[in-house]
């Protein structure tokens, strides 16, 4: 009796994970090529960029915000980083500068939201547009190659290299995940993020510096977008001015698939990771099944809808 009850609760609370497992099982029945180490590593590598962006997005959405500027920041960061590498800048300097620029761009959106009371959707829409313009001005609309210096080779490793057989982007995504998980679960900042999303007025009255936390949260999202930009640029050995277009949608989808509420205050970073993996597996599976890329988008949309409806229903019934 109690056992079946526990099982029910477990199912209710882990719909995203179960969805991922069911999806993987189904695909592996269809194609023997799916459950191979190579393919799985491939999926992880392809997922890592969206996962990194989505983890920053999780912070933002937990505060009941949204960040539409992630794709533009990714592109701008990539362009700046590529030109620094092409100018033979020491790797660590180039990487850190790029991350700081990403954080600063995020903090700028965050400040507009926190201090001028502009809605996050609008503020980051403005950010998305302006930063994309910045990218086009900076690159003059042309790709920037990372150049021929030695540093370009070591820079490539960031996106294309391996550590102990694991792609470096996957390792980076893993580290980012652990850091985010720690911050959200074990620090004051994490508590404040949830509190602001739960009820901003309550948080304010409890002495939380709401504006500061908001700026930090968008800075985190900006920095992680820049990190994703670095990885993408490194792997392609060049920065594309159109990089990251519509990436915000995949990131938001991953967060929502992971069970985080767009209303804020409720959700888990593990969910986001699973959400990103669901999208990654789905993309991979549709490719293996040779589904045309036109139909892929329809299928992806349908799965997201299904997942969100299922999750919404489980939350409604568990009340």
């Amino acid at each position: 009796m109690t056992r079946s009850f526990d099982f029910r609760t477990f199912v209710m609370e882990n719909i995203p994970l179960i969805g991922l497992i069911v999806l993987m099982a189904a695909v592996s029945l269809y194609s023997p090529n799916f459950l191979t180490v190579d393919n799985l590593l491939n999926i992880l590598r392809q997922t890592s960029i969206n996962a990194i962006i989505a983890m920053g997005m999780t912070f933002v959405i937990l505060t009941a915000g949204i960040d539409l500027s992630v794709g533009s920041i990714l592109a701008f960061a990539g362009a700046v980083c590529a030109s620094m590498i092409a100018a033979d800048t020491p790797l660590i300097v180039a990487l850190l500068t790029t991350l700081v620029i990403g954080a600063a761009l995020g903090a700028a959106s965050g400040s507009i939201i926190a201090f001028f009371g502009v809605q996050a959707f609008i503020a980051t829409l403005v950010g998305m547009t302006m930063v994309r313009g910045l990218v086009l001005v900076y690159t003059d609309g042309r790709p920037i190659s990372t150049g021929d210096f030695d540093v370009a080779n070591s820079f490539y490793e960031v996106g294309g290299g391996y550590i102990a057989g694991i792609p470096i982007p996957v390792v980076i995504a893993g580290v980012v995940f652990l850091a985010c998980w720690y911050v959200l679960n074990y620090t004051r900042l994490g508590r404040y993020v949830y509190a602001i999303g739960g009820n901003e007025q309550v948080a304010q009255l409890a002495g939380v510096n709401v504006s500061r936390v908001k700026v930090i949260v968008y800075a985190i999202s900006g920095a992680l977008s820049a990190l994703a930009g670095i990885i993408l640029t490194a792997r392609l050995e060049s920065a594309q001015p159109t990089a990251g277009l519509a990436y915000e949608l995949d990131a938001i989808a991953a967060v929502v698939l992971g069970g985080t509420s767009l209303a804020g205050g409720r959700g888990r970073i593990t969910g986001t990771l699973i959400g990103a993996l669901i999208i990654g597996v789905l993309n991979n599976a549709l490719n293996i099944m040779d589904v045309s890329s036109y139909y892929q988008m329809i299928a992806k949309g349908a799965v997201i809808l299904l997942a969100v409806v299922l999750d919404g229903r489980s939350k409604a019934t568990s009340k």
Partner: protein
Amino acid sequence: MTALLELRGVDKAFGSVRVLQGVDFTVESGHVVALAGENGAGKSTLMKIITGIYRRDAGSMKYRGQEARFANARQSMDAGIAMIHQELNLLPALSVGENIFLGREPVDSTGRILWGEIDRESRHWLGQLKQNIDPRTETGKLSIAQQQMVEIARALSMNAEVIIMDEPTDSLTDVETKILFDVVDHLRAEGKGLVFISHRLGEIFQMCDDVAVLRDGAMVHQGPVSEIDEDTLIRHMVGRELSDQYPFVPAVPAAVRLKVEGLVARGVREVSFEARAGEVVGFAGLVGAGRTELGKAIYGANPATAGTIEIDGAPMRIGTPRDGVRAGIGYVTEDRKLEGLIQSHGLRRNMSLTGLFRFSGSSGHIDKRAERAEITDYINAFSIKTHGIDAVVSQLSGGNQQKVSIAKSLVPKPRILILDEPTRGVDVGAKREIYTLINELKAQGLCILLMSSDMPELLGISDRILVMSNGLLTGSFDRGEADQEAIMRCTVAGLTEGTVQ
């Protein structure tokens, strides 16, 4: 005399928890029935069954002589059962008239809304309540009391036969309460059936014909008010003797803890006073007199524009709640739901939010073990009824939520505690627990500022009472010399002068 509404043997369980067991409940035409009982006794559940929000597991319900089973609130409303919730269900951005006719706007044949009729009808029903409110006013701009009147007008406009009022007087001033009682008399004379849920026993005896008492999901008593006295009623409610509702322990003279001098803020015109350590200073006043604003100004949530605040002799700069917490001030808001607790979060997260710095160093790392230990201590010490440290706050009863709220303000170890309406929406038993708690905190040397609209409560547990009116202090009474009448005179003293900016 006919029974408008008759429930027999109603059962209701949520999962394995039985909330109602074999409840009989009758509302007669032209009668006002008080429904009394502690929080968690099942009053809300019973009302939700009557109004079709919940389905009963067993039992029968007859409405106007016919078996009734409402599938949702809409059906019960159409049938003539109106419920006025404690948390008002008005849309603040809509006009008063729009709210009164929400969902049943009169339209002409082309579907255009007849604004003239909404306006006229709204005026008519508000007029019945002696409310001179323009139906085109934005509802959010009205006082809570006025909004309550709008809710009642809405119920009247639906020609409801049975009107259920959940704690209607909780946010009303004495004057407004009087108006409400007149309205109730009027409705009674028209043969309506009224259900009146209240924690204020005085009101039950003053205006109800029958009283029904729920305890732990069972109806332990229903009968005429004239055949019962207050002590018996309380005994029915709590199932034991309640000695002395206001346990008072006089303050031990101590040093001045808080000195407020010429404080000006939104809603506060100019206020100066002192409060000592180990003292409860009560603040009386009408709704809108500036008590909440004063409390928030001291805490930093309503930044002062002039004046000084000294704590233990040291001048403090308090411009944000964060400053207030650092200065050693604890604040318990009157609005638990919107400002006090994050309803969707658990006890632990709520209780430790303000005092999180006590469990975390400069790195921000939270010592979860220390946090858990302290929160558990508070849950035990305040006997908060919950099934776990992470249970969601919205599932707790009002009294337990209030205890969580108070505990939350105590975690940072304040020197001064500001309590704004600490017993609003709290049942008799829990009220007494909160009073005992206030006494304990006072004995520990906390300086307590108590804002309350419940006059017996203020008189019962304050060492001194200050009266506010229209943003000014208009009276100061020591415990011995304070009486209700003198305080009432002061509460209107400030109204003769200009208004608050």
